[in-house]
């Protein structure tokens, strides 16, 4: 992915736009482990797990070099042993018990965003909800003012454009400007929070002292990664969950009547509709995976989406929802924000169905994703519903 000259014909031709099942069948058809256009695809559950369990061979650091980030993307672009030092600090800040503490505030914010369009009878799930909410949640976690949301979104949209584009996309000048503005903004808060800390992730990282202390560059790198990893992905998942609820009125009514059902429904949508369906690694040595030799220095594409569907249904199957999935990855780089992401999705479903239990996709609109893309997401999801006040 580090050479813009190379074309990834096989990758880019996957028929994922309208029907993800067709797209993931396309990736699993050639086999468990195979090479196309110089990229090595690992598509079976066993193959993906093998890579997850051998981070000393399948480097995440090398895979993220190609993004050309001006700061180290902490912790995903770091291999062991440094990686564990960062995770020991960050894992407790994103543990479920910490998310529990801000549950009420995050619920209030979801309710407020939904209330803004509940009386209109129509909305675009992507623009009016999915893009706004994860941004507010990140601002909340970092102790930044919610009033900065729209400005923050403008910068992050540019930044994500630079990092999340298709294979081989290079950063444009405009995108670099977004990054510079965002860094300037964050640097101001880093300076402020060093002297006047609050009860937030940024303050807690900045409060580390001695050997544990992080440099400003490390803190910026972490912030930058959270922007790349925590906004588009959750936004995409909100879109996919709402898409499935819009298309399955029976399922939607069951969830509305029994909110506990939201959890398995969300797990199944996460299993089937991955915002980051393929994660790259670079091999540090030659390695045999299930009988196939992969050379050193090769880009391995861990196709989480096909692993999730292996031997399982291509549709939502609630009785098997507890069997889990690899949507949040696995091994040492398991998604740090997974607990927060799950909570965001749960709060959105709860609050949406409470305000708007009945809705349909706007007539004539065919929901689709763009491919290739850094993050698989619906471009838009216009829906209609009986307008109502919020009680």
């Amino acid at each position, binding site marked *: 992915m580090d050479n813009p000259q190379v074309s990834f014909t096989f990758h880019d031709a996957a028929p994922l736009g309208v029907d993800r099942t067709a797209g993931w069948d396309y990736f699993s058809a050639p086999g468990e482990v195979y090479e196309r256009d110089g990229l090595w695809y690992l598509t079976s559950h066993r193959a993906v797990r093998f890579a997850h369990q051998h981070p000393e061979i399948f480097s995440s650091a090398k895979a993220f070099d190609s993004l050309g980030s001006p700061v180290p993307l902490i912790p995903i672009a770091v291999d062991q042993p440094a990686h564990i030092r960062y995770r020991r600090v960050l894992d*407790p800040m994103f543990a479920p018990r910490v998310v529990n503490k801000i549950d009420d505030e995050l619920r209030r914010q979801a309710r407020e965003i939904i209330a803004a369009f509940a009386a209109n009878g129509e909305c675009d799930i992507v623009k009016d909800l999915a893009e706004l909410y994860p941004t507010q949640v990140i601002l909340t976690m970092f102790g930044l003012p919610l009033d900065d949301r729209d400005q923050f979104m403008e910068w992050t949209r540019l930044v994500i454009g630079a990092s999340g584009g298709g294979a081989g996309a290079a950063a444009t000048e405009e995108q670099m400007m977004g990054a510079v503005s965002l860094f300037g903004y964050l640097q101001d808060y880093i300076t402020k929070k060093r002297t006047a800390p609050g009860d937030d992730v940024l303050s807690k990282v900045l409060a580390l002292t001695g050997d544990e202390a992080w440099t400003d560059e490390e803190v910026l790198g972490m912030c930058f990664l959270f922007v790349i990893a925590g906004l588009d992905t959750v936004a995409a998942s909100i879109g996919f969950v709402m898409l499935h609820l819009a298309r399955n009125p029976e399922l939607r009514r069951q969830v509305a009547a029994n909110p506990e059902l939201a959890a398995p429904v969300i797990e199944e949508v996460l299993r089937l509709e991955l915002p980051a369906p393929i994660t790259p690694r670079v091999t540090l040595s030659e390695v045999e995976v299930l009988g196939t030799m992969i050379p050193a220095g090769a880009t391995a594409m861990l196709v989480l989406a096909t692993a999730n569907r292996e031997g399982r249904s291509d549709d939502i199957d609630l009785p098997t929802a507890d069997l889990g999935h690899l949507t949040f990855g696995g091994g040492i780089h398991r998604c740090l924000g997974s*607990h927060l992401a799950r909570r965001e999705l749960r709060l959105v479903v709860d609050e949406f169905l409470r305000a708007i239990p009945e809705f349909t996709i706007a007539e004539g609109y065919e929901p689709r994703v763009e491919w290739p893309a850094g993050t698989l997401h619906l471009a838009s999801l216009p829906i209609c519903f009986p307008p109502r006040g919020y009680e």
Partner: protein
Amino acid sequence: MKIVHDPDVCTGHGRCYLLVPELFADDEFGHGFLSGSGVLAEEQMKAAQKAVDSCPERAISIVAD
């Protein structure tokens, strides 16, 4: 029968303590751990199997005493 959890394989997906709180609890890192001895009564077998099946890292298993 006994349920065992391998902390070296666990990476903190958090499924076990969420889905099977009668056997697992969470630590400050969001990683799961067995809240009891792990020795399973007959009526706990189904819950134990659920914990095994739900772990994306395959860090949980049921073994003979």
